[in-house]
């Protein structure tokens, strides 16, 4: 659709002449071709994404709990699930927490990822291979396994981190310190874990982008008297923009929905201090057996993600066209 949009204006202007030149049937076939080619993908997407989304919308407007499951009676309640979410007094805090945590994750991932990518470019061949292998290994660890390792690393009393920090003799005896007792330090630990797992993708993608920048641009910049920072700004960042946009969108979507890491490490605790939208939706749906409310929270999350990413998706598409 986006590709045809810029073409449409001239095509419309040419309409009368084109119609005169070409037989009607052929014109129809030309027009239909893209739709025919898109049809299989549309059908598959409709089945695996569209149908669940529609079901989700329907459930979010029903009083859908265990009773509904056993009796098959699903009373239609309109927007009451949504009303309960917004008036329950929890929504504001959860949303703010989710957004801040997401912003911290995306910012951290992009910054560290970019630094690693630049470092890869500057490093020698052997070092580059070694770092790349390390990155891919970190990337390859399944989320759940990595989270369990993290849990053990930061365990009070027996965790390696506490032992190491105590050995440094700078912070005093930290062996009994519990990182998950306050929501700030719990978030910090989860942040480390998620960023550690997300950096490889960002770093390798940006590295791929960096390697495509012709070195002549840097030479030109240097001849024109640009310093390292200026040449980074006007050459590197300009070239990386579409890729940066892409990884930003993906990071926002992923980090907004971080679930496993939080659920396994804190279950939303202490005292709800790490409850994000995903955790909240899950506990409403599967701990309180209120599938309707859980669905409503999920719908709200999807809507918010759409708003958050819409701007960037547009920019990405445009940037892609320019390139």
């Amino acid at each position, binding site marked *: 659709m986006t590709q045809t949009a810029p073409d449409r204006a001239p095509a419309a202007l040419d309409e009368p002449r084109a119609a005169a030149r070409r037989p009607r049937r052929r014109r129809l076939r030309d027009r239909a071709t893209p739709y025919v080619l898109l049809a299989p993908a549309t059908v598959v997407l409709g089945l695996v994404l569209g149908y*669940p989304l529609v079901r989700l919308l*329907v459930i979010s407007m029903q009083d859908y709990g265990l009773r509904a499951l056993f*009796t098959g009676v699903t009373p239609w309640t309109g927007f009451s699930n949504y009303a309960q979410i917004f008036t329950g007094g929890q929504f504001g805090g959860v949303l703010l927490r989710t957004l801040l945590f997401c912003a911290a994750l995306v910012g951290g991932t992009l910054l560290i990822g970019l630094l690693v990518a630049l470092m890869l470019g500057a490093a020698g061949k052997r070092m580059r291979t070694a770092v790349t292998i390390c990155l891919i290994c970190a990337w390859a660890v399944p989320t759940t396994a990595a989270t369990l390792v993290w*849990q053990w690393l930061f365990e009070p009393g027996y965790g390696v981190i506490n032992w190491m920090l105590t050995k440094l003799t700078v912070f005093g005896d930290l062996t*009994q310190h519990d990182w998950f007792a306050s929501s700030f330090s719990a978030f910090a630990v989860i942040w480390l874990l998620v960023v550690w797992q997300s950096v490889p993708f960002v770093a390798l993608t940006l590295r791929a982008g960096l390697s495509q920048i012709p070195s002549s641009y840097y030479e030109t910049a240097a001849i024109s008297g640009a310093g390292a920072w200026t040449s980074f700004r006007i050459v590197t960042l300009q070239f990386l923009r579409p890729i940066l946009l892409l990884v930003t969108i993906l990071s926002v979507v992923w980090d907004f*929905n971080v679930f496993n890491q939080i659920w396994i490490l804190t279950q939303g605790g202490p005292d709800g201090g790490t409850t994000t939208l995903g955790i909240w939706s899950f506990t409403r749906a599967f701990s309180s*057996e209120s599938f309707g409310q859980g669905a409503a929270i999920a719908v709200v*999350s999807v809507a918010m993600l759409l708003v958050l990413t819409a701007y960037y998706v547009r920019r990405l598409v445009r940037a892609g066209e320019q390139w």
Partner: protein
Amino acid sequence: MVWTKRRTLDFTKGQMSSFRPTEFRPRFPYALEATVHQRSTLGIRKLPLLAGVLALAAVGVSGCGGSSGSSTPAAAKRSSTLSVWYMDGDLSSQDQAAIGAAFTAATGAKVNVQIQEWANINTKLSTALAQNDPPDVVEIGNTDVPLFAATGALADLTPEKPALEQGQSWLPGLSGPATVSGHLYAAPLFAGDRAVIYNKKLWAKAGITSVPTSYAELTADLDKIKTANPSPDFSAFYFPGQYWYGALQFVWDAGGQLATESGSTWSGALASPAAQQGLATWKTFQNTYSTAASRNVDTKSPDQAALFAQGKAATILDTSLNTVLKDNPALKGEIGTFPFPGRAAGTSQPVFLGGSDLAIAAKSPNQALAEQYLKAATSIAVQTADIVGVDGWTPVSTQLITRTSSTLSETSKAFAQAASRSVATPATPGWATIESDASINQFFAAIATGTQSPQQAAQSFDSHLDQALNATP
């Protein structure tokens, strides 16, 4: 709920060695096996929202499937084989066979037993009971029974109650949760509870010669042990902050309640003066005798039985010696048990009674046969010879506890004694929420770590209880 009795009831005599008591076993919990399961459900990397969407859709689809096929008359499928679901690690196969034999002798019908895993059992039960061809008889954890009873999943057993009870007084911890608005929806199967487990050598080394019989004696003994073992990673009494089954004993002993029911409305009661006193006593006890590292953890990570087995803890409160002896067989004969002493002289703290009930699926076509099966399982003969005699569980009535007490081993006696003063969790479907969302773990951990005063923590948790316990499922 589900996982409670898995660890609650683990004080058997050996044949369940594969089963470890774990403090915390929510549907997607810390335990490895369960988190692996979680991956398979929500495993799309970093896209749990999508996965959640799919999961919800799946729930929706299964719900619809159940209702659309309901045109077949269920009674037409009457059969003389009864299908029974037991939970993994609860009754031994010997017990199951004994109940089956008694049932077959009475009715001539056969039994088809299936063993279910604990992971995700509530979802599994929900799906199975919603179908038109459900298992006839299901074993359900005692605190989960209200969830299914109140939603129309289980058959009403009120008319059969006298025949099932056979003149016994059932333990309120088992029959209470099975009773919703005066109607009985399940029959007790077996119970289990907690008692103090102590390392005889460590206690003797601190100069203690006799088992404490009052709370004051207990703390005096623990003080001596603490003085004799000053290391910061040693616990005179290891008591994890999220160990709510244990912490509740202090609340109940002080005369407090989790929640009170008036009419049909539940209200959280932890801010009441009695409960506050219990919470304060518990906080002091936890902070004084357990390591600082234990204030925000559950009994599973680190495993309290393993700590005890390694000698890092002189005393723990637990359901069984099995895991300790498995971790360190050398401790055999070196371990003693006694009921946790209560405030009032000569009493023990009321215990949280875990256990399982047997229920009949409301949609089962074999209601009469299923009732016969329940009668066989609750019969005095099976309870005495098998539930106690073979497996070492606590039987379902006070009379049976008295009757079987003489046959128990020395270490099992304390558990049976403690069970005579038991309390149940609120018999309402909303209780399942409190366990699954781990809010009760966080409530006690907040008090133990001191991030909130008992008063603050109780006020916010009470309002959560108000909301969750009164929710209609």
